[in-house]
């Protein structure tokens, strides 16, 4: 949280805020996309009151994939261990609610802090390596966290999962209802705020430097950018967002399982990110929504059926990339006209 708020203040202080500034290359203001998303999310919640559980899940996974996009799409670090931060955030929020106090917002802060601390601690070690070595080391870290959570049965419940905590009322007056209406609105609100924060973070000078490192590490180092420190900051910020997503998941479902730390969660999030398009933040949300809706419909027919769908979809996306398909369509329409 500390790191995140620091960057936020930096982003706010950045001079490129004025829309009339001719030198500013940005066209859309940072609040537009989150606002559109808020409208879409609210509309979905009101139009589909039977699907509030699925919608809450989409908001939470959207936040998680968003944080993954900061690492993969913005910083260009391929990782398969992002679930570690999600799971630690979830367990931190769950244990906090069970043992200290049931207030959701304080629990959310605890989850954010846990995710950021884990990301900062492991990032300090991981970010010395690049490419395939980095990828495999993230897997190792995530699996070690999973083994530790499995071992620390007294705190995490081990295989049985952590449950038995009841969340207190939000802001001291709104009680979590059985239909999950408040849970959905709560998750949506947190997602919108985090989306705005991530947008500002990515457009800040700090975010620009990280994107520059993604494009060309050697050149940014030659320009005097402290490459390691910038990547570390971005990794910690992404960890904070992933922790927030984990805490939301723990608070809205009232149970935390070992699967929130699993390899498959990391892999699925990566698939969602690629489906939506990496590096644009909004793509992360689109990917999460498409993936989860597909999952929901296909898996309700047959769980293995679902693997056919997602496997075929993945192969199709690689063979016919969305950008290429759009270009092809445009060409054909242009050719006819």
């Amino acid at each position, binding site marked *: 949280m500390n790191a995140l708020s620091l960057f936020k203040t930096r982003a706010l202080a950045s001079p490129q805020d004025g829309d009339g500034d001719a030198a500013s290359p940005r066209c859309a203001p940072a609040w537009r996309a989150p606002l559109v998303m808020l409208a879409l999310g609210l509309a979905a919640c009101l139009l589909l009151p039977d699907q509030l559980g699925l919608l809450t899940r989409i908001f939470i996974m959207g936040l998680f994939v968003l944080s993954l996009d900061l690492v993969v799409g913005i910083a260009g670090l*391929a990782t398969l261990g992002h679930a570690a931060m999600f799971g630690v955030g979830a367990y931190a929020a769950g244990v906090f609610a069970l043992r200290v106090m049931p207030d959701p917002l304080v629990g959310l802060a605890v989850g954010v802090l846990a995710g950021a601390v884990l990301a900062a601690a492991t990032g300090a*070690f991981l970010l*010395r*390596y690049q490419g*395939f*070595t980095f990828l*495999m*080391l993230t*897997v*190792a*870290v995530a*699996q*070690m966290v*999973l*083994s*530790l959570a*499995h*071992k620390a049965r007294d705190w995490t419940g081990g295989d049985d999962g952590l449950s038995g905590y009841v969340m207190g009322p939000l802001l001291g007056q709104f009680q979590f209802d059985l239909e999950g209406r408040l849970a959905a609105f709560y998750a949506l609100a947190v997602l919108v705020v985090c989306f705005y924060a991530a947008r500002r973070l990515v457009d800040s000078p700090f975010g620009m430097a990280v994107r520059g490192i993604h494009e060309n590490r050697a050149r940014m180092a030659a320009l005097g950018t402290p490459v390691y420190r910038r990547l570390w900051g971005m990794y910690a910020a992404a960890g904070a967002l992933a922790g927030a997503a984990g805490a939301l998941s723990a608070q809205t479902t009232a149970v935390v399982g070992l699967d929130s730390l699993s*390899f*498959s969660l990391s*892999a699925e999030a990566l*698939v969602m990110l*690629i489906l939506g398009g990496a590096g644009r933040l909004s793509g992360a949300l689109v990917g999460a929504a498409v993936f989860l809706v597909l999952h929901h419909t296909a898996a309700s027919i047959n769980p*293995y*059926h679902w*693997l*056919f769908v*997602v*496997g*075929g*979809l*993945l*192969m199709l*996306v*690689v*063979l016919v990339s969305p950008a290429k398909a759009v270009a092809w369509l445009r060409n054909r329409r242009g050719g006819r006209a």
Partner: protein
Amino acid sequence: MITFSNILIDGLAYGMVLFVIAVGLSVTLGLMRFVNLSHGAFAMVGGYCVALLTRELQWSFWIAVPLAVLATGLLGALLEALVLRHLYQRKELDQVLFTIGLTFVLIASTNALVGPQVQMVQLPPSLSGSVDLGFRTLPAQRLLVIGVGLAVAVLAALTVTRTRFGIWLRAAVDHAGTASTLGIPIRRVQCLTFAAGAAMAGLGGVLGAEVMPLEPYYALKYLVLVLVVVAVGGMGSIAGSLCAAIVLGLIETASKYLASDWGSLFFFAAMALFLAWRPNGLLKR
């Protein structure tokens, strides 16, 4: 003392299984620069072939194994020739996504064709017994696994360093354009290498059926282990993969015997340490 020797034998056998599965991936990843995450699926196909041939058709284990290895190799060659070769020039992420998608489809097809239950590989009587070595009796299956692992290591190393094919392979890897101008059939070399890697994985799937139970999710479950072996051993290094597989196999087996409630913590901790110490592979400075 008994525990110690048990750990040694089981760990060696486990390491050999990991090595036999990983060697093909190490070659395609290190020499052909192709990230093939569907490699675990090849091991699964090999194991399933043997399990089904021996159980449903009552074939002899000794006929079923070579046939299964051959079938896996053919499947690898077919996939390579039809689809995967178009991905050699693509970005790593594209390769990862495509092969993961392929793995999903293979898992789903396995489930649709055979069902979700665990498949047992029925060993012939000569393997299910134990062998008296004078000082100790050891399970014959473990000895076979260790022997086959060593044979695969020696054969692979000799093929790459000593044969005409190995020279072609290294030439094709170093500079494909020049190699093909010199008349080396690049496409055939790549296809054969990929098929051989897939066939080895199939063999590993059969050998390891006892420690890694065959089920549809096999392809994903053990993929991480195989990737760890390749990463620690260094991509493209056969000797490195062998060392990494044996050390990691011993560590995993020892932690299962002595500290089972810690899960895979020690395995992954060892991997992180090795990678931090030698990021390019155990045997490369």
